[in-house]
């Protein structure tokens, strides 16, 4: 078991909309094991992204527990964890590919991708070199033209930014990987590359959860499917 959600609910209270309450997820029980890729199903607005964001501790659960088996073997309960513990959990244990790249001004595409490895290498010169070499391999595999590697991705196309985002969040092989529509703006060849990368991650024993707009991508990578509509409350 890599991740377990127990009776997790998420309700948004909009204080400036007359205190309107949106109950998005209700009493979610699910567990995720090493070597599986769980594909989330359900129409949009059902809470698929919300579920991923709860797993990443980006959203805070209204109730319930979320336990994560960390890379060092310890168990972390996300709803009770300190910011410091969550930062470390994300650094070592859980990656998250969002739909959009949040760009950092002035940092080159190469360094944006290499950054998770550079941070691990405590900023030492040989580690930085090794991290950049790895980043080159990822950029090549995801077909980012070499002429762009040393430019900041702010001006890149949507598809290029998405591929930078995939490389940045997959370059470090973390035990858990969450994917929120990683192929939404990719062409067929790059979509196939991402399918290959996901299958390779599953083969090395990572635990994945993903949302895929393209039915054929979901079908190609899923080892199990989960219908999020079942967690939708009546209210």
């Amino acid at each position, binding site marked *: 078991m890599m991740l377990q959600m127990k009776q997790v609910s998420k309700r948004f209270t909009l204080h400036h909309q007359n205190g309107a309450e949106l109950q998005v997820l209700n009493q979610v029980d699910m567990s995720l094991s090493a070597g599986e890729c769980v594909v989330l199903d359900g129409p949009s607005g059902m809470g698929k992204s919300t579920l991923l964001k709860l797993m990443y501790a980006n959203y*805070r659960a209204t109730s319930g527990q979320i336990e994560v088996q960390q890379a060092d073997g310890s168990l972390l309960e996300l709803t009770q964890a300190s*910011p410091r513990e969550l930062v470390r959990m994300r650094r070592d244990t859980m990656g998250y590919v969002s739909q959009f790249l949040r760009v950092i001004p002035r940092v080159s595409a190469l360094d944006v991708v290499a950054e998770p490895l550079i941070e691990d290498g405590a900023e030492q010169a040989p580690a930085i070199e090794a991290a950049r070499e790895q980043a080159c391999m990822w950029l090549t595999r995801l077909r980012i033209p070499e002429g762009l590697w040393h430019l900041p991705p702010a001006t890149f196309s949507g598809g290029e930014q998405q591929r930078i985002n995939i490389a940045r969040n997959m370059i470090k092989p973390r035990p858990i990987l969450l994917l929120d529509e990683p192929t939404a703006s990719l062409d067929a060849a790059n979509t196939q590359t991402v399918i290959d990368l996901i299958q390779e991650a599953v083969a090395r024993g990572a635990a994945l959860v993903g949302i895929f707009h393209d039915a054929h991508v979901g079908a190609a990578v899923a080892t199990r499917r989960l219908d999020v509509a079942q967690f939708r409350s009546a209210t």
Partner: protein
Amino acid sequence: MPTLDNSLPLLRVRGVGKRYGDRVALEDASFELWPGEVMAVVGESGSGKTTLLNAIAARSRPDVGQVEFLGRDGQLQDIYTMSQAQQRLLGRTDWGFVHQNAADGLRMDVSAGANVGERLMGLGERHYGQLRSTAQEWLARVEIDTARIDDTPRTFSGGMRQRLQIARNLVTSPRLVFMDEPTSGLDVSVQARLLDMLRQLTRQMQLAVVIVTHDLAVARLLAHRMMVMQRGCVVEAGLTDQVLDDPQHPYTQLLVSSVLQP
């Protein structure tokens, strides 16, 4: 960030409060900060964020509460039970303070090189050649043309002054840096350069930082975690992306919804 063990935090703030007459400027602020952690304190003017910063940086004694800093001897020490000499030494070595207005943190009538070298001299470095080469190194690091080493900051642009102030603070490799609105008052393009530089330096040097800002984008880019203040109270705290993407408190929701794409 180093391994998580049972080690002590670098800074421990407990129940800190301050009043000015009948007005409560700061109430019951508590947090712990570890090496390498960058924490943003956000809130509107008058929310108490600068009062908090001054209280934890030994610049203005709080009425109640405790502020402890982890000394090089591995012991947490109450900064307000230290002698003034000890506080000053801390201010020159292990701590840095970056002011909103660079003129408040620089000596405007001495050269850029002397501004950088001064803190090193305070630590006993007397070798002129060594001081000058360290100053050159730091000017280059904050992207100031080293040919300007003998010019005074009065002749510098706002962005250059702010970068010089950062070099002056970081030259002694402090372990904790306080920043008060370091990017406000600068043009947007100048801000981006400064932010990127701060982001790199904090990571490379594993600095612990408390940064006061009203700009949520600055918090998003630089800070691991954040505290939101309103009327002297901390109303919400957590990971930066949690607070910005899933704000819980009415005031935080208002703050986040009032800006475009934080």
